[in-house]
């Protein structure tokens, strides 16, 4: 009973993860700016992978589940950091261009508060 429930839950999480991954990839392909791509990418690197790792509960294999928990913790901590690092690099590049280039090239459709 519980097993079936877990199976269903696992399958659902798996599907969710896959869907998120797919949308994420699609977004990265489609969206024009680095920031926007980072949002799309976050779909996979955050919730997407967490969902797939969480699907491990359906395996009812203690070894796998413990690993999954560990991986979730680490992913949750690290994936925002890499997104942030990329964003920061983009930001710096942008500011540097502003400083060095004579003409300011505003990224299309972007609003900047600075």
């Amino acid at each position, binding site marked *: 009973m519980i097993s079936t429930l877990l199976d269903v839950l696992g399958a659902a999480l798996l599907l969710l993860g896959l869907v998120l991954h797919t949308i994420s990839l699609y977004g990265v392909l489609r969206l024009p700016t680095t920031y926007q791509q980072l949002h799309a990418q976050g779909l996979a690197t955050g919730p997407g992978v967490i969902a797939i790792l969480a699907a491990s509960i359906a395996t009812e294999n203690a070894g796998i589940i413990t690993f999954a928990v*560990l991986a979730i913790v*680490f992913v949750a*901590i*690290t994936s*925002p*950091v890499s997104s*942030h*690092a990329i964003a*920061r690099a983009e930001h710096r590049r942008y500011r540097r261009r502003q400083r060095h280039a004579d003409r300011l090239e505003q990224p299309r459709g972007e609003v900047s508060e600075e």
Partner: protein
Amino acid sequence: MVRHPDVIVRGVARLLLTPSIAVAAALLVKGYAEVGDGFSAGMIISLTISLQYVAMGTSATERTLPLLRFSPALVLGGLLLALATAFFPLAWGEPPLSHKPGPGESVPTVGTLELFTPLAFDVAILLLVVGVLTTILHQFANTEPEEEVR
């Protein structure tokens, strides 16, 4: 350019330092039974250390982690330990890498941790890998002053 440190990366680097060592220790301990060995454990620790470099920069890292200065000693000590493990059977005329306790003898264990010479070998590898990779990063990160003049 004003260097202004990245708090998040720094924080996470600091945050991950000890957990990754714990993971590495686990990889080492279970190495004989499961995935992992001294090498992969050493790689993980080295990567954690390099994360510190990435987060804090060379000089700050080496200031905060003065133990890093002992990396060369780690390298040579690790290799010597490995050599000792490999060649100590020579003392009683056995071929190199004859581990103790040998086949058929019982191995004292603490949980998953097996106390036998392969563990020493693995530890040696771990120390060595950490030492070598840290040294290499240090080498690349620090330019020799006289060289800059040339």
